[in-house]
């Protein structure tokens, strides 16, 4: 699996723009590739319909043809990124394709949750910052995860809200399932007292 962004203190990268709102998870990875039973190797299907023609040849006009996976590890996209299907295959595919962080003015809830659980960093900024990136493609950025700052060369430094639970897990060296398992006694008590629904 690709290096997890949230395990790195700092991401220094250039940006790659997809300047459209409402990029849904069917675009990120089409349903035809969801018959997989593993998490690995989904990068080849990332934005498949945008990158390839029906016969599997590379699409001439695709903006993704210009993507440089070695230098451009931060994706900048329009608002409501990741809407639609709950498929976790979307962050798996984006990570395997080479992205470590995504910048947008708004993320769809399930996508955001799925991304965080896989170490793909969703960074929410104002529309004006997103627009700056769209006006300045292939731009140098530095993301300091611990300080939750995004430095944009020649533009400024922005704080972004870091998911406090991700920070909580990181500093304790646990993942989200470990956290629930640490509350085993509370779960057992809930079940014994028959709280909630039958």
């Amino acid at each position: 699996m690709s290096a997890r962004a949230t395990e790195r203190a700092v991401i220094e990268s250039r940006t790659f723009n997809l300047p459209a709102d409402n990029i849904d998870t069917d675009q990120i990875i089409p349903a035809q590739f969801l018959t997989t039973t593993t998490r690995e190797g989904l990068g080849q299907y990332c934005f498949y319909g945008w990158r390839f023609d029906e016969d599997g040849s590379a699409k001439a006009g695709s903006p993704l043809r210009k993507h440089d996976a070695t230098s451009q590890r931060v994706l900048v996209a329009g608002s409501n990124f990741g809407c639609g299907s709950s498929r976790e295959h979307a962050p798996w595919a984006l990570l395997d394709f080479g992205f470590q962080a995504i910048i947008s003015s708004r993320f769809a809830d399930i996508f955001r949750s799925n991304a965080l659980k896989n170490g793909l960093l969703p960074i929410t900024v104002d529309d004006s910052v997103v627009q700056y990136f769209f006006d300045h493609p292939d731009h140098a950025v530095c993301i300091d995860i611990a300080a939750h700052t995004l430095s944009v060369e020649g533009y400024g430094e922005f704080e972004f809200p870091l998911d406090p639970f991700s920070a909580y897990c990181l500093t304790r060296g646990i993942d989200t399932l470990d956290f629930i398992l640490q509350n085993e006694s509370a779960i057992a008590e809930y079940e014994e007292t028959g709280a909630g629904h039958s």
Partner: protein
Amino acid sequence: MSQPSTLFEKIWLRHLVREETAETPAILYIDLQLLHEVTSPQAFSELKRRGLNVRRTDRCLATIDHSTPTTPPDEQGVRHYATEQARAQVDLLHVNCAEHGIELHSWDSPNRGIVHVMGPELGATQPGMTIVCGDSHTATHGAFGALAFGIGTTEVGHVLATQCLLQNKPQTLGIRIEGELQAGVTAKDVILHVIGTIGVGGGTGSVIEYFGSTVRAMDMESRMTLCNMSIECGARAGLVAPDEMTFNYLEGRPMAPSGADWERALADWRTLQTDPGARFDQLVKIDATKIQPSVTWGINPGMVIAIDEHIPQRTDSATRDALDYMHLRGGARLAGEPVDVVFIGSCTNSRLSDLRAAASLLKDRKVAPGTRLLVVPGSEAIRRAAEAEGLDRIFKASGAEWREPGCSMCLGMNGDIARPGELVVSTSNRNFKGRQGRDVRTVLASPLTAAASAINGRVSDPREFLESGA
């Protein structure tokens, strides 16, 4: 009771294992997890990797629906999957369910169906429950006053291992829908209208409660259609408070409580209402009397117009992108646009009332030459009921294909797709680019509008047939 609270807050409170803190989300107990073949394999393998067991197999219920063919098996009894990988995925769910002792409704079950159709049919979906499924249309179960979240595969694993879900407390969005629906206007038109009104991101971070006289008047299947598409405006869940309609639907179903348990459950369920004076974080009012049969013209479910309205002009890049993909002209009408395929099915609109509505128009009529109509019932139970009352014969006589239950062309995972460039009028929930096949253009609509469009071979107002047939 002290503070008046919303239905959402009541269900939330009942299921808190541990409260949310500044650093950690709430731990919420989950009463029922629904499973299917697509979003569960990696969750089971994660459990295996960590040496964990399924905590409560009695709170799991599985089916196969997404990757499954909707054509019958051949003479040797062999099912023809789109790919061997699809078959392997279904086989793996068999293995995982057998290994952990989870109830699976597979090919041999008379109850097999689309996961969000089967749960309510079996009475597994009940008021006040928390329900999850690795599928964004899990909100469907909210029609029963259950808090139902669509979740990712990592969370499927969490719930398998711990029966708990981590959640930051959502906001609440009240959608009050008042007034009588016009003839030919259905729950599908209402929810399309709602999404068109608040936008595809309008519900982000929120749980919606739908209420008002229009909602009260809806039967359970209509309420399921309404709640089903809550995710299409970004909401985490959708809810309708339970009432006599809900209880009548549930009574006597196999997994519903019975005897004294039923009476106890009823007494409890009657308390599951938003208290007078309780506040929603946001409130939207919808005048249902003004809603027309509604359709999408673009590439997300918020791009909605009434059937007799004009398509928006090319004023912004999103509209231009949508119009270019859809091969439509800004300012033109969508009604009258030639239709290649009509799909009646999906967890949104594949229930008996949906099939009856479509059949009422198709009876003694033919699907237009050059148009293909695919009718896919939501479950084996619906298929049997439809066949018992002869709906299958009406569809077949009209020239339609009558298929076996599954998700089918809603997302085309099983190979049920249209050809590039074709226009599909679909009763499903998403019109994203390529969703129903490469370069396929999807128009979301109600079963009535879909049937009318099949007959005319063009996007059509169903009221044309209601008036002539009245």
